[in-house]
């Protein structure tokens, strides 16, 4: 019987080898896939059992973890929840993380490589591992003012430091309370999520960066830049400004806002056309410059269609397809397929204010270890140079005129020169227009660039959005010792 017994012994060896190979396959090859499966709550509960880092604005924690008595050892709290919700997002047992909670999860959870050495040290000293803090670039006064000003409307405000690209404010309304999505009570979380789902506009969408809209006349700044950069134009160059413009190859009549007349002489200087936001003048200007010039300038200002990671991933902005000269005319006044995120609109103002250099927008100023030592600091980077300093100066002069004499008068701040541009974008028949304003101040030494977007505001950019911009600019300049 020994021969078959030996064979049985070998078979057992084979069976056990099969087990070991299979276990290797599961625990090594499929390890990452299984670890990250959405149904695997281990990683999340492990994160909960660690003290998650805080999200900090101006020295105040806007998201922090506090110890609890239940099995998920820490509860995520948002002391000023709705004001910072568009930026912080939530940290939910059921829905995972969102916005900065998601984009900076590695740091907050303590698994980021920049924290690796410290984790190793924790291992030896027996200290409980904790996550790092994320310090945002936001300015509390800007954020709070912007959110307060948008109260009651659907809209967004983005404020940038033109010189660095730091995001000073990122407001989006309607907003919500992230704490209610981050509680430890699944039933309550589901109930609140259902409440948000039932709303017409989802508050969890950050309209400042995650959606794009037709910019209307705000786009005329880019067409102006293309004209000035071509060398054939100065602010004083007189261009055609008819009462109506028949788009080439069609019978479509393009008119000015409220069917008004831009100029009795049917022509005016470029600076005047921008000041009163003359549609026919800019449609014709765009057609004269050609698609390539307009598109290249738009891309130079960041409208490449590519998303940015600031670190929240943004929607792209672009001029879309332009099939004909007629389409080019409509696109040149920011209609048709032209789409901008409010962030993109703010980037246009910031680039003009920063002598024609566009800085990459960023939201995270510092990453701090649990012991508050700074382990990483933002390094402002240039994204592109859409126009020369000379062209930027000319654009600034034209935008100052918009606020001083034109459609943007509601953005005037006493004692400060503000440069800006309004936008009133048609959405569809019988749907109220979107209202825009972009600008920067002080014009000669810009410290803040701002974009205000009010969805379906029903008014004009000048009367709906410009006053919000003024409030935000004032709040910031006052805070800066102005």
């Amino acid at each position, binding site marked *: *019987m*020994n*021969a*078959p*017994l*030996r064979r*049985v*012994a070998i078979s*057992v*060896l084979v*069976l*056990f080898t*099969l*087990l*070991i190979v*299979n*276990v*290797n396959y*599961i*625990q*090594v090859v*499929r*390890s*990452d*896939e*299984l*670890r990250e*499966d959405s*149904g*695997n*709550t*281990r*990683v999340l*509960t*492990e994160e909960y059992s660690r003290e998650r880092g805080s999200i900090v604005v101006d020295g105040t924690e806007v998201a922090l973890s506090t110890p609890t008595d239940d*099995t998920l050892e820490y509860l995520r709290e948002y002391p000023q929840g709705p004001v910072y919700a568009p930026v912080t997002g939530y940290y939910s047992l059921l829905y995972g993380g969102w916005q900065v909670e998601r984009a900076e999860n590695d740091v907050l959870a303590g698994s980021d490589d920049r924290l690796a050495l410290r984790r190793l040290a924790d291992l030896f000293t027996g200290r409980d591992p904790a996550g790092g803090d994320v310090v945002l670039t936001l300015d509390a006064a800007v954020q709070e003012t912007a959110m307060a000003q948008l109260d009651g409307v659907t809209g967004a405000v983005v404020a940038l430091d033109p010189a660095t690209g730091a995001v000073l404010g990122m407001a989006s309304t309607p907003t919500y309370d992230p704490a209610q999505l981050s509680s430890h009570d699944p039933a309550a979380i589901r109930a609140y999520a259902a409440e948000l789902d039932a709303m017409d506009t989802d508050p969890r969408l950050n309209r400042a960066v995650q959606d794009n809209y037709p910019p209307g006349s705000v786009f005329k700044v880019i067409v102006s830049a293309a004209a000035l950069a071509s060398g054939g134009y100065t602010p004083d160059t007189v261009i055609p400004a008819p009462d109506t413009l028949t788009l080439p190859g069609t019978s479509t009549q393009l008119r000015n806002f409220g069917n008004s007349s831009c100029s009795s002489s049917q022509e005016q200087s470029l600076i005047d056309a921008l000041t009163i936001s003359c549609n026919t003048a800019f449609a014709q200007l765009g057609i004269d410059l050609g698609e390539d010039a307009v598109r290249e300038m738009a891309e130079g200002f960041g409208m490449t269609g590519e998303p940015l990671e600031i670190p929240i991933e943004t929607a792209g902005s672009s001029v879309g397809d332009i099939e004909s000269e007629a389409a080019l005319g409509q696109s040149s006044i920011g209609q048709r397929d032209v789409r901008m995120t409010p962030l993109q609109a703010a980037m246009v103002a910031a680039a003009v204010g920063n002598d024609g250099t566009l800085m990459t927008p960023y939201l995270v100023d510092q990453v701090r270890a649990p012991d508050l030592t700074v382990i990483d600091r933002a390094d402002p980077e240039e994204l592109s140079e859409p126009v020369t300093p000379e062209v930027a100066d000319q654009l600034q002069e034209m935008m100052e005129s918009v606020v001083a004499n034109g459609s943007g008068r509601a953005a005037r701040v006493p004692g400060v020169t503000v440069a800006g541009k309004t936008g009133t974008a048609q959405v569809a028949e019988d749907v109220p227009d979107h209202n825009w304003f972009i600008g920067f101040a002080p014009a000669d030494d810009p410290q803040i660039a701002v974009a205000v977007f009010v969805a379906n505001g029903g008014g004009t950019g000048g009367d709906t959005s410009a006053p919000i911009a003024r409030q935000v600019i004032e709040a910031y300049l006052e805070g800066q010792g102005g």
Partner: protein
Amino acid sequence: MTAGPSTDPRAAAPSTPTPTRRNTELALLGFAVLITLAAQSIVDLTVTGSLRAELAGFGAWFAGIWAVLHLVVRTLAPYADPLLLPAVALLSGLGLTMIHRLDLADEQVDGASGGDAPVQLLWATVGAGLFIAVLVILRDHRLLARFAYTLALVGLVLLALPAVLPASVSEVYGAKIWIRVAGFSIQPGEFAKICLIVFFASYLVDKRDVLALASRRVMGLEIPRARDLGPVLVAWALSILVLVFERDLGSSLLLFGIFVVMLYVATERSSWLLIGLGLFAAGAFIAYQLFGHVRVRVDTWLDPFAYRDEGGYQLVQSLFGLGTGGLFGAGLGGGRPDQVPVAKSDFIAAALGEELGLFGLVALIVVYLILVERGLRTSLVVRDAFGKLLAGGLAFAVAWQLFVVLGGVTGLLPLTGLTTPFVAYGGSSLVANFGLVAILVRISDAARRPAAPPAPPKPAIGEAPTEVVTP
């Protein structure tokens, strides 16, 4: 088989004294106890931050069990294989540790105190008692052959009992394999397994010549006569009955597999393996067609993630645990093995894999491999045919059971309700397996014992009675 009267296991006459290797066993047992206590301490420190007061008592009790068993083996089976007992000690120690760790997790969730680990330790003590009883009563394993038919009857009754009892007494999670009396749950199938292996061994040794020789050669295969197919068909029918009336896929697969392998070993005819495989395939096909619970098992095995919220939930959670554990594991007390349903019994291997990682799980498998291969080695060395077949059957039973369980937990095979021997929570399984190892120890003692021991071992104990017994 070599020289000497093949029926006398003690006929070998070595020229040099055979070492008993008892001190090796003692050292290895000490090592196993040390690992267990270290693991228990790590669990306590990781989960609660301090050692529990009961740890000293546990340690003393646990070490005491192995000290006593070692002394019993030293006295009653001095030439026994020195690796069998330490392997069992390590496995049950790791099992107790993981059960304790899961107790702590339960405590955190619902505040329940006490837990299952002390109960399991009690069962281990009962198992040790059975181990001693087997060694004391069974001075020669060949005695068992005399009671083969009695044991067969006992085995069949044990196997059938849950099927005829009302479901309220015998059904847990859809499997009718329990007897629940006065707060205790007994799985009689675990004991039936051993009884039937003894019977198979005795029966097959008697009939092996007929089963092996009366055959025709067809296409290079020795095909047995139709009437000799009887026993294998009976075993097959028995497995099917277990499957039908107790809905116990595991025991069914276990018993049939053991029988076919023992039949092959007894007859040395590989045609039996093919016949067994054919019958298995037919049975599996019929079962899949006829029984919903079998179909569910197979479907969830093929694609557990498609049924992740229903039938595949357990397996998917188990895979999550193993995957998250990765190479090195979460560390004892550092994972979430309590997320897998019934982690203490059916899925304890997944819990160990999560916290000890691939290295720990492979080490566990290797310890089983040592246990099984020492058992098979015993069957190779022992001289009597009954001992050979019995040791081979018992060793293979442990291997086959582990393969089916671990294969199920890791998705290699469909899930069955079998327990991980020595490690999983459950009194019946633990006690029965202690009995199984006791028989292996007895046979291994016979296998290695020299004909005339160089120094007469303690005549006071009286080896005399065993000498009287002749087959």
